[in-house]
């Protein structure tokens, strides 16, 4: 099972804090928030004086005469929580507010971005503290566990959810109203009276017995107590049984017949997807032939597929297989066609259009390119995205059409030492080796100080040789020296041949090669 991580961010006694902030009273002093004459939240200072949830207002005032009492106001709580949420969102996007005072984040990205979950938690606490609010962080595999962990300010290790919850009192399951049904308090009370005093004792009950004796909420509570996923995480687990398959009799050998089958199959797939309330972003098209050959190709899309889009892709794919080159063409007709969604998103989630707008011209161009992808394979059609780098080849990253446009390096970084414009109009990715020599034929090298040891005068490329009419450089670039895998210690130079032709040379490990030609 794919392991997810959830980061929960909990601001203790949020209604009390918000009430104090709104009334300009110190949140560190005693504050109580009442609803229907009962205390529903109080600050730590008030709690120390004996105020607690459920007390009548008069009793709370009797126990702590200096307490500031405010009426409950959910609007105020939400309004004042917004800056906190915004502060968190600024460092870790994708915050999901469960209620004012409690928010969750997906833990994988945050943990990776900040280096570790510990560092991420520290950073989040700092960010929230900057808005003048205290908070606690909990990290766990599941939502409920993470929220309970946040109340204890604990980082629960992977797979340790059930272990962490086991010794906790059973009341913890009802402590967070935003995660439980209203009848959860009654359930917890019942379990307590039955003698189940800890979450672990409840979790030890067989699920079948819980489901048959208590209500639907008890099933949710029981899953939470065992640290099992209680609701699908927002990064959509794949619902089962979305594949559609069709036996084709007679086998398909012609493209028009394939188109007909593709349309019917696409309709069936989309009926299923709609029933599961998801949309497909990656589709695996598989076909088997009468001779037992299996063909398959995955289609990736930046935006969810429509029924027409699916039908087109299946048709193009079949077209590509049936009319392709002799070696890849199936030897018999296609007998089974199968569509399998590999990646789905929530229906309605729509990413930005790849070609910027969604005009008719863009759509036409896109369809033509996708058609070619069907014939040549997904990697064949590429789109460039501006990247950062010092050499001409690094400044544009090529990604297959339909994939997310992610540059390899940050193009907005300054890149000191970048070869200034104009860039070479021809970039040789094969980097043919050449020899740069001085008048006597001695090879020219770049010294550790970053200069030529002798002035170059001649360039030898294969069997041909040119006299130089000009040269400039070398410009050393000591890139990513901290990383042995991608780091490179190189120098670039421009030379002008007598043809006339200007070349961009690159010096690496004692040899010169041609990186680009200005022509």
């Amino acid at each position: 099972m794919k392991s997810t991580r959830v980061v929960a961010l909990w601001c203790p006694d949020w209604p009390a804090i918000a009430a104090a902030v709104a009334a300009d009273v110190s949140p560190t002093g005693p504050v109580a928030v009442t609803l229907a004459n009962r205390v529903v939240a109080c600050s730590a200072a008030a709690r120390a004086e004996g105020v607690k949830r459920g007390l009548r207002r008069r009793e709370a005032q009797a126990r702590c005469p200096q307490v500031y009492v405010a009426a409950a106001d959910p609007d105020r709580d939400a309004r004042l929580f917004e800056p906190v949420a915004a502060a968190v969102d600024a460092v870790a996007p994708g915050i999901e507010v469960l209620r004012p005072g409690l928010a969750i984040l997906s833990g994988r990205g945050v943990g990776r971005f900040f280096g570790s979950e510990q560092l991420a938690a520290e950073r989040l606490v700092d960010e929230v503290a900057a808005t003048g609010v205290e908070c606690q962080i909990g990290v766990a595999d599941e939502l409920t566990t993470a929220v309970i962990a946040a109340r204890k300010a604990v980082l629960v290790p992977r797979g340790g959810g059930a272990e962490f919850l086991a010794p906790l009192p059973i009341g913890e399951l009802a402590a967070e109203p935003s995660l439980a049904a209203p009848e959860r308090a009654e359930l917890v009370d019942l379990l307590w009276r039955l003698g189940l005093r800890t979450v672990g004792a409840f979790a030890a009950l067989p699920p079948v017995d819980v489901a048959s004796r208590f209500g639907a909420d008890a099933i949710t509570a029981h899953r939470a107590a065992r640290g099992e996923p209680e609701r699908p995480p927002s990064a959509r687990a794949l619902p089962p049984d979305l594949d559609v398959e069709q036996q084709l009799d007679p086998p398909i050998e012609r493209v028009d017949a394939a188109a007909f089958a593709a349309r019917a199959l696409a309709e069936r797939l989309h009926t299923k997807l709609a029933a599961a309330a998801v949309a497909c972003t990656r589709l695996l098209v598989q076909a088997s032939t009468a001779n037992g050959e299996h063909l398959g190709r995955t289609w990736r899309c930046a935006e969810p597929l429509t029924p027409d889009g699916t039908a087109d892709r299946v048709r193009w794919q079949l077209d590509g297989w049936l009319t392709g080159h002799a070696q890849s063409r199936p030897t018999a007709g296609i007998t089974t066609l199968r569509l399998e969604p590999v990646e789905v998103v929530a229906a309605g989630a729509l990413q930005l259009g790849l070609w910027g707008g969604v005009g008719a011209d863009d759509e036409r161009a896109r369809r033509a390119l996708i058609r070619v992808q069907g014939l040549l394979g997904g990697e064949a059609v590429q789109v460039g995205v501006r990247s950062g780098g010092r050499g001409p080849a690094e400044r544009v990253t090529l990604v297959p059409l339909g994939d997310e446009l992610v540059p390899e390096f940050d193009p907005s970084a300054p890149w000191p030492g970048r070869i200034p414009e104009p860039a070479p109009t021809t970039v040789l990715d094969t980097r043919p080796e050449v020899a740069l020599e001085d008048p006597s034929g001695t090879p020219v090298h770049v010294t550790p100080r970053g200069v030529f040891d002798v002035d170059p005068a001649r360039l030898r490329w294969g069997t041909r040789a040119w006299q130089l009419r000009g040269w400039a450089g070398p410009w050393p670039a000591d890139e990513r020296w901290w990383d042995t895998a991608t780091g490179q210690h190189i120098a670039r130079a421009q030379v002008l041949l007598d043809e006339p032709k200007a070349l961009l040379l690159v010096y690496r490990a004692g040899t010169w090669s041609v990186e680009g030609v200005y022509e």
Partner: protein
Amino acid sequence: MSRLGRRRIGGRQGVIGVGSSAGEAVEFAELAGLSRQERVERLRRRMMAVPARGETRRGRLEDADGRVSVDILPVPGPFADLLPPGGLSRGAVVAHSGADSVLLGLVAAVTAGGGHAVVLGCPRLGLAAVVEMGAQLARLALVPNPGADPVEIAAILLDGMDLVVLGLGGSSVTPTRARAVVARARSKGCALVVTGGHWPGPDLRLAGRVVGYEGLGWGTGRVRGMSLDVSAQGRGFGPVLRRLELCRAQGTTEWVGADAVQAKVILEEAVSI
């Protein structure tokens, strides 16, 4: 002064096909003020703009702000003087040879003007240079390895793209094959530029040759620009040769006609004095 006037007409000639009588009256009034040679050139351009048999007349309408009609694909500024319609005609087949920067200029101008371009089988094209010329990468697709039959792939892409650059990789296309592709290009309104191979009977031949570089000394400076001799020859007009320069300007590069370069030099001298 006369030069300015000619240029203005040249800029408008893409819209002649509208054929409104009032517009033509103005055209003739403008012709009256020109020298014989200019008048001949002017009329020749008009003839070029008349659609060929079978070519649709769709889209030959002037925008509200007087932009060139949508039947012409934009080209870098100085190329407009070189090509009689003032740009690349949609449906035309252009055979390119020589310097790659001419190719890059065409691609950059089309994508910057809102069109879609695809480059087939030219894996060595310098994309950083296209970006510097102002290309929109989002509207530029690349098929570095178009398989065994690049012409077939190009024929598919003609439907949907505005400019298809096809690298033939040294091969030659038979006239029968070419005729089908040309017909398709014309009906879909897409310009096809072939390079690195032989194409029978193109509408336009464009060749570029580098004649010099600017800024690179003996151990000093760096390449700041280059000048090219670009020649164009098409059906109905003889070879035209122009000296164009690719100059750097504030993080980008731009094409400048040789006259403009001269003017710039003169201006710089005036300032230095």
